[in-house]
């Protein structure tokens, strides 16, 4: 007698227990707290918040713990949680010119009004494993030296400096009236506006954008970019409640912003000038916003009358494949049973092979 495999439910429950056990690891080692993750794995938390589209360090840290440090899985957890949250209001645009800057650099000028502010960065560390971090005694409480002078509160954005001379294209708003596209509420549509594109890229997978940005630099998209400015720090978020009619501050978020400046030779109607690519993300996410700015600029190819011949310039290709929750879901769904369709294919292949054989036999006989 043949007994079909049953007990899917039991297997699932057992698998849940096993993953819980595996996640905990050796119980002799103290359990890590979400608070420790939020404090000590801050850049992981920043990435999860940015791509998970929720600004909440505690939830992001919890997601990282639950996902055993698998950041794409943690991003997925935040996104699924996001679905259950009602929407109270739309924020006013954040003003990054009024950012409380922690880091701000420009590669385009030696010095800039407000100064270059190196801030916390791994850029100039030597990538040597620091065994002191592995020592049982830990690192104690490292403290940075205070700056001799407080930061200049006036830090104009570098793109605005170029703008004074008319060397860089103007960013024009489409007015307060225009509703901003929100792809968490409506599906993508093409051709995509810049709002849809930037939201997609801000939520997009860092690795995917990094590779695309890199491809642009290597010639698959041919613009020479300059890091006009990268700034990171706190900006305040405001909403205008219907019943008040004026803006109120609801809190601060840390964001990273990148303005890439690109050459542009001009066209029939436009004199030669610099063009921009823009990147913005929650948290300290420099690699992400730089890649985002490169891809944003590459995707403007058609708008600027350039030939769009490379992957990074292909709007449907980039926007449809940037989301790692969609991508990892669809790749992983291949693990689901497909035996019904496989059976259909088996039937076909056997039939085709039989017909092939018959043909050969007939040909040999002739």
């Amino acid at each position, binding site marked *: 007698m043949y007994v079909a495999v049953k007990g899917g439910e039991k297997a699932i429950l057992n698998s849940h227990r096993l993953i819980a056990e595996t996640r905990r690891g050796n119980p002799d080692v103290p359990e890590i707290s979400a608070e420790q993750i939020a404090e000590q794995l801050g850049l992981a938390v920043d990435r999860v918040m940015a791509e998970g589209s929720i600004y909440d360090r505690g939830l992001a840290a919890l997601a990282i713990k639950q996902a055993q440090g698998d950041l794409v899985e943690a991003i*997925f957890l935040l996104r699924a949680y996001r679905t259950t949250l*009602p929407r109270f209001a739309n924020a006013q645009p954040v003003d990054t010119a009024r950012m409380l800057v922690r880091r701000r650099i420009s590669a385009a000028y030696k010095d800039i009004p407000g100064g270059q502010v190196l801030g916390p960065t791994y850029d100039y560390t030597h990538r040597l494993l620091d065994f002191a971090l592995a020592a049982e005694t830990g690192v104690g409480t490292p403290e940075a030296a205070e700056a001799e002078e407080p930061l200049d509160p006036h830090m104009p954005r570098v793109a605005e400096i170029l703008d004074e001379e008319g060397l860089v294209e103007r960013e024009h708003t489409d007015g307060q009236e225009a509703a901003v596209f929100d792809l968490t509420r409506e599906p993508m549509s093409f051709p995509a506006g810049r709002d849809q594109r930037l939201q997609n890229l801000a939520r997009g997978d860092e690795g995917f954008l990094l590779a695309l940005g890199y491809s642009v630099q290597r010639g698959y998209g041919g613009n020479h970019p300059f890091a006009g400015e990268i700034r990171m720090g706190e900006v305040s978020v405001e909403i205008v409640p219907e019943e008040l009619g004026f803006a109120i501050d609801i809190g601060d978020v840390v964001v990273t912003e990148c303005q890439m400046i690109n050459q542009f030779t001009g066209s029939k109607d436009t004199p030669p000038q610099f063009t921009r690519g823009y990147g913005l993300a929650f948290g300290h996410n420099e690699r992400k916003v730089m890649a985002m700015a490169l891809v944003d600029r590459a995707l403007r190819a058609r708008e600027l009358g350039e030939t769009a011949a490379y992957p990074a310039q292909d709007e*449907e290709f980039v926007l449809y494949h940037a989301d790692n929750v969609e991508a990892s*879901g669809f790749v992983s769904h291949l693990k689901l*049973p497909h035996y019904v369709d496989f059976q259909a294919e088996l*039937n076909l292949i056997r039939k085709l092979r039989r017909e092939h054989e018959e043909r050969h036999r007939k040909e040999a006989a002739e």
Partner: protein
Amino acid sequence: MSAARPAWDEAYNFAYLDEQTKRMIRRALLKALAVPGYQVPFGGREMPLAYGWGTGGMQVTASVIGPSDTLKVIDQGADDTTNAVSIRRFFQRVTGVNTTEATEQADIIQTRHRIPEVPLREGQILVYQVPQPEPLRKLEPRETETRKMHGFGEYGLMHVRLYEDIARFGHIATTYSYPVMVNGRYLMSPTPIPKFDNPKMRNNPAIQLFGAGREKRIYAIPPYTRVESLDFEDHPFEVQRWPHACALCGSRESYLDEVVLDDSGGRMFVCSDTHYCATRRAAGHSGAMAEGSVARALAPSAGKQEDSHERA
């Protein structure tokens, strides 16, 4: 309201989605029924299940389901496949509704890859999980292009593709996701059901709803609607047939799965629709390897006989 409120995990909204999301999906469903086979874009949300694992079907079910409904979930025709179990558990948790394996008793059936063997009745709702709603996607990767083709009802590309099959193999080499024309107007992907199930879509008394979560599309076939599998006059559409019966229930009418019994070519064929098979066995039907029959594996040579397949 007379219906008793069901017990669900009230840490979540009833059926997980917030009311605003349900309204948006419900509006899309009504438009989908008004234009059979047309893919309505909708603001799909992330679900607590991975994209590609049934998020579209889940959002449709969640927007339709009520406390007095009885739900059945199948994957590959079976109620006990792990993903079917997982989705059923999700709805038990977030709605508290009754679930069943019996096709006849279900008000809503969420499915992946199959249509049940037992004919559906009026009022039942079949919710398909759809990985790729666009039947033309493999021929034209761009949404902007395929949307134009649907707009103008321009489906020459698909006919060319099928005709190339005939030129090359002597027949159409599509065995699942076999494209259909709905109400004479829209080319539609029947999701990867085997073409064996295609004829069941036509003039079905039940409501057929399709949800593609990752691609954010919803479409529908109302009851009693024309659904035609594409074919050519000299190459009419035909479905898969097997030269043998189900080894458990003896059915010669159902879609069969091949089960490999050993590594020397032994195999058997059983119904993919587990409830259909169990019902037949309970009614006294039995196949070659059912309980009470002589236990034996098919000899390796028996596997070769099976190569005859499409008899139709």
